[in-house]
């Protein structure tokens, strides 16, 4: 792998390209520092070269010490299995940078977030409405992720402006934030003409808890606990992405056995969520028996988790540097036996769904997300793959998956059925992978590594069940977390949902929504 490959390719297209510095601190990360004036052009170029959406775009407050802000833009170069981080410094007195949103839509939400959290102006972004700090409750002029932010100052409150569709016969249907089901809060503004939806604007941020700020100043072990409370249904993926980042910083590489065991838990998490969503899709078309059947399978997996780890949601087992549990032959046997039953039940579930014509009729061609839209919006993970965007971090980065012959599922049609098929395929693949992985170790003893964290920064990542979970972490010289930027796949994918429902009728919205099943708390942070 040529570490300068990406630079050479930029130079190819842009001969005057002259980066300030190029660093490769880790084999899977290349960090290119560039001039702010060239930021937009080079980002667009890297976007074209890697055909990756903006995976992360965030600011770091370095006014104390260096009197500047840093903006990092992260792309995935899947061909080389590396992350390309383009970085610029901007002056602290008039903080602004050229907006990328008009060239790459996937940067838009990130820029809005930078604006609301730091007050840094993305020049040229047409939409700078706040996302998480709602105008009705949070006074203007308060930027919580600035290092010197303590308490919100008094200021004006505003009202959020929804995009409006106007014309004869158009009416708006507001839904939420409190929904009919047992589910997170979010507001959806439908504009409809007759029955079909012609615009959906989700307004989220209702579960904003200031998670990124909470990470700051914490030691590693506390921070792992916070990462487990970011999104409760992908708790293990989040803690794994975080520990991956701090392990990179400290230079510790975990044992192969730990890697296998972590992969097993990651797949178990994927399985219980996938079967839960399959049940959810069934109940949202009123097909109650398979839904109840799916919840029995989900419960079996949660109880298996409990037996293996003492936690139904795999909480408190992942540590920076290893895992805090033993897994002996007896537990392994429990795992393999439970897996057999779960797999059999799952097969029955799939048969029931596929043999029901009325069910298939509802999911087929409902909620189509086209490939071009998915690419432009930067839709990732399962929803992306269902629309023909073949990105799965497990395929590129994790050697153990490749050794196990990991097969990535991709569908082209982008409808609810495609997302259902993806889940079914991935569930079965997860079963196979767990069997494969569990044959690689016999008696796992808990790893007791105390990490010595030094100053540094790294990108931690993992492919959770929704898609890539990314943690960019910076630590100071005494090992405290200085900045932690989290991107849950939901952040990219909510926009995908608002395009997928267009032309569908409102009664099909729950079905489309469930087929994405995005996290509110992971998005709102």
């Amino acid at each position, binding site marked *: 792998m040529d570490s300068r490959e990406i630079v050479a390719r930029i130079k190819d297209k842009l001969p005057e390209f002259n980066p300030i510095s190029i660093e490769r601190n880790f084999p899977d990360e290349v960090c290119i520092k560039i001039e702010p004036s060239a930021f937009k052009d080079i980002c667009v170029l890297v976007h074209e070269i890697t055909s990756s959406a903006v995976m992360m775009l965030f600011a770091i407050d370095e006014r104390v010490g260096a009197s500047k802000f840093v903006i990092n833009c992260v792309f995935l170069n899947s061909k080389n299995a590396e992350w390309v981080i383009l970085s610029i410094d901007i002056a602290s007195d008039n903080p602004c940078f050229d907006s990328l949103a008009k060239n790459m839509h996937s940067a838009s939400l990130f820029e809005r977030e930078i604006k609301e959290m730091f007050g840094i102006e993305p020049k040229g972004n047409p939409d700078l409405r706040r996302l*998480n*700090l*709602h105008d*009705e*409750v*949070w006074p203007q002029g308060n930027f*919580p992720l600035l290092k010197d*932010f303590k*308490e*919100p100052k008094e200021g004006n409150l505003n009202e959020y402006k929804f995009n409006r569709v106007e014309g004869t016969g158009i009416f708006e249907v507001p839904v939420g*934030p*409190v929904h*009919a*089901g*047992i*589910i*997170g*809060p979010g507001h959806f503004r439908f504009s409809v003409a007759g029955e079909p939806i012609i615009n959906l604007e989700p307004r989220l*941020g*209702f*579960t*904003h*808890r*200031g*998670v990124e*700020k*909470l990470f700051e100043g914490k030691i590693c072990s506390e921070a792992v*606990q*916070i990462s487990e*409370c*970011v*999104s*409760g*249904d992908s*708790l293990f993926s989040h803690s794994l992405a975080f520990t991956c980042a701090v392990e990179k910083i400290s230079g510790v590489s975990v044992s192969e056995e730990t890697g296998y065991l972590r992969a097993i838990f990651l797949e178990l998490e994927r399985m219980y969520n996938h079967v*839960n969503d399959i049940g959810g899709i069934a109940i949202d078309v009123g097909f109650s*028996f*398979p839904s*109840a*059947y799916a*919840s*029995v399978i*989900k*419960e079996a997996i*949660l109880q298996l988790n409990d037996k293996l780890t003492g936690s*139904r*949601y795999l*909480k408190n087992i992942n540590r920076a540097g290893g895992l805090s549990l033993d897994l002996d032959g007896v537990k392994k046997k429990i795992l393999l036996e439970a897996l057999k039953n779960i797999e059999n039940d799952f097969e*029955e579930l799939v*048969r*029931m769904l596929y*043999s029901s014509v009325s069910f298939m009729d509802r999911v087929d061609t409902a909620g189509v997300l086209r490939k071009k839209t998915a690419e432009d919006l930067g839709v990732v993970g399962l929803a992306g793959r269902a629309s023909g965007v073949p990105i799965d971090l497990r395929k590129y980065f994790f050697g153990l998956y490749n050794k196990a012959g990991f097969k990535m599922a991709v569908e082209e049609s982008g409808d609810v059925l495609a997302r259902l098929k993806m889940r079914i395929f991935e569930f079965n693949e997860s079963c196979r992978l767990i069997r494969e992985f569990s044959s690689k170790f016999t008696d796992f003893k808990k790893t007791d590594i105390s990490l010595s964290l030094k100053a540094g920064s790294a990108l931690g990542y993992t492919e959770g069940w929704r898609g890539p979970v990314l943690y960019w972490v910076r630590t100071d010289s005494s090992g405290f977390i200085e900045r932690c930027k989290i991107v849950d796949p939901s952040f990219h994918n909510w926009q995908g949902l608002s395009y997928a429902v267009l032309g569908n009728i409102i009664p099909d919205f729950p079905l489309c929504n469930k087929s994405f099943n995005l*996290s*509110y*708390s992971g998005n*709102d942070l």
Partner: protein
Amino acid sequence: MFDIFKNRLLKGVVTRHIPLELSKEIESCGLELESLIRKRFGRSLHIREVDTGSCGACESEIISANNPIYDLQRFGINFVASPRHADALLVTGPVSKNMLIALKKTYDAMPCPKFVITLGDCALDGGIFKDSYYTHGAVKDILPVALHIPGCPPSPSVIIQTLLVFLKFKDLK
């Protein structure tokens, strides 16, 4: 259709017996209110759930409590879609600033008599998020809370047991 029938017979009844520990100590309201609630809702309680910023794990466990294995509905406890149909409000999460108005409005939309239950460590005092700039913390500072179900997240059996002990559920079937 045949598959459904076959699987129905093969699976049989999966519902579990839930042992009641009546000695269990629960954090709840004063005795007077408790007995009132028991008198009114002891055999039929309708709950509206509101997430005020939880991570989603509590919701997942509440949903699990309604699955065929735990089957909360057999005890006369139902989750309803509208606050207008509800006797109790079940709150999860550390109360994000953005949810404060929605929480109060939901409570106000419920007909009297009504009471509030909190579920999960976040709802008790903000939990891990209590020092955040964007949370209000304890639900009990905002609404009168009659019962708390502890855990992070509480398992379905803990949820059911706490509810039943609180309601002094007698005829367990």
